């Protein structure tokens, strides 16, 4: 079964483009328009990886990571952000054991795909 990526991104156009790339790579994708929606989707279908924006309505990326990591401490997380949080990727590392990668926007999609391949079992 293809690894499932939970994609939380409030910019619909960006989310569409990323989803297309991930599907083309052979991943299964669950799309959520904000943190809260992502959290609910994760309870329905347990993801293998979280690919999330930081600034989102209702529940932001940091809150989403904390909540998901509470349930799945080993969940790998890839953060896409327009903000560089102080402390970098380590800022999200403390909440669980799983690896965290941080990518600034605009995204270098090739680099993101390399990271995903590294963090996920082969499709």
């Amino acid at each position, binding site marked *: 079964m293809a690894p499932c990526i939970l994609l939380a991104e409030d*910019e619909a*156009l*960006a989310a569409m*483009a*990323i989803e*297309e*790339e991930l599907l083309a790579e052979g991943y299964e994708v669950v799309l959520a328009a904000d943190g809260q929606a992502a959290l609910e989707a994760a309870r329905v279908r347990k993801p293998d990886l979280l690919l999330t924006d930081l*600034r989102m309505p209702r529940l932001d990326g940091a809150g989403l990571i904390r909540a998901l990591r509470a349930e799945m401490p080993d969940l790998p997380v890839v953060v*896409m952000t*327009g*903000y*560089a*949080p*102080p*402390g*970098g990727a*380590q800022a999200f590392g403390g909440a669980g054991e799983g690896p965290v990668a*941080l990518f*600034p*926007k*605009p*995204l270098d*999609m090739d680099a993101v795909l390399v990271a995903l391949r590294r963090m996920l079992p082969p499709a």
Partner: protein
Amino acid sequence: MALDILSLPAPRLLPPGLCSIIEPDILYLHIISDVAIGLAYFSIPVVLLIFARRRRDLAYPWVIPLFAAFIIACGTSHLMHVWTMFRPDYAVEGLVKLVTAAISVATAILLWPLLPRFLALPSAELLAREVAERRAAEARALASEARSAAFVEHLAEALFVIRIESGERWIIETVNPAFERMFGIAAETLRERPTEAAMPPEVLAQVLPHWRRAIATGRPVDYVVEAQAPVGWRVWETVLVPMSGADGQVERLLGSARDITRMRRLQSDVLQSARLATIGTMCAGLAHETSQPLNTATLWLRNARVAGEAGGTEAARTRLRRAHDIIESQLRRAGDLVTRIRALPGEEAEAPEAFDAVRIVDPALRQVAMAYAAEGVEVALRSQAARLPVLGVPPRLEQALLQLLANARDAVLDRRATDPDAPACIIVTLREDAGEAVLEVEDTGPGVPEALREAIFDPFFTTREPGHGSGLGLSLVAAVARGMGGRVEARNQAGGGAIFTLRLALAPASSLTTPVEVLN
């Protein structure tokens, strides 16, 4: 026993000139007494005259010769009396008496009006008391002077005294130890020296207008001066008090100076922080809001590329590929700009670590030295510190230093473009100062215009032509400095050229991992 000369019978009179005293005992008594009196009277004036000669400070000295004349006249009349006992020169005796009478009467007349004045003269006892009082006052004055001297000696403020001599000559009379400490100048190199010889011309140029004003108005003035002292860049506030002589002309200037370098730095830090906080919020918002559409556009461009390869003629595909390349490079350019703006608030994306700033400088200098040398720009390192432990992200400090070096190079080349003989030199200094790691980049360029000294650190501020330089270089340096608990300052040196100073918080020396540990 004396006989009444008139009652003596004429025949019994002794021969003329002989004494009319018959009894020899009485005769001798008179003779001896008169001669003794006469001689004594001749001796006393000699004493008086010697006294008058030696003591030139006598009140009414003309009284002494008058007394002397009076006493001599009296003595002469006594001796004349003895003479007339043997020879009847009564006319001569009478004349002598007349002279004596004249001098006596004159003395008596002159003496009475003098009496109140003599009484007014202080007595020896009074004088002694006055002298004792004066001595006590003098001792008090000396003690007070000693107290003042101790006060001046230990005062925290720098004190100096300038003596004004004719022809606009200013002499440094004295300075106190606080002055020596504040400026790092030994007092003996200043004392009794003319100001133009003892003081740097740029400091003199700053202070002289204030000194002249104090002299012209006769009133205290205060002023602030900033300049390079042997102990480093200093800002000080001086209160100058003119001291006038008896003729009302200002003779001396008393100055007390307070070092306000730190206070100024704190003030400017507070201002800079407030401004940078605003700029930081703005930059972060701008970076985020711009990154979203850039992100979407970049992602869809990949989509477009794939679609473009799918159909159409080869010529159309080539054209489309070229268009996509251009769009991608422009998006990347905008993306790079967003990344740089994002870095400006000074928050590091990487976790800070303790490292030795000295070890960053060497590779950075090596990196540029060759290229700069090819342009005729010399780069020199003047390190006064073996180790400068700081806390931050090493590549960011290196980036900041490279930025300062690039600016220095541009400044040097600018100056040489207008003045081909100008020196082309960049000096990097490393030192520790008051608990801070100081990294200075000094150039021989045209310097920073005074009005722009603060503005040059603002994002997008540039003195370059549009298209040359983003105006983010110094903002980045300021951000790095801020991220490392420090700041950056720009100032001009006296001989032209700018100095950019990075002041970073020192980390504990123990926080440094030694090279051995790194190897392990």
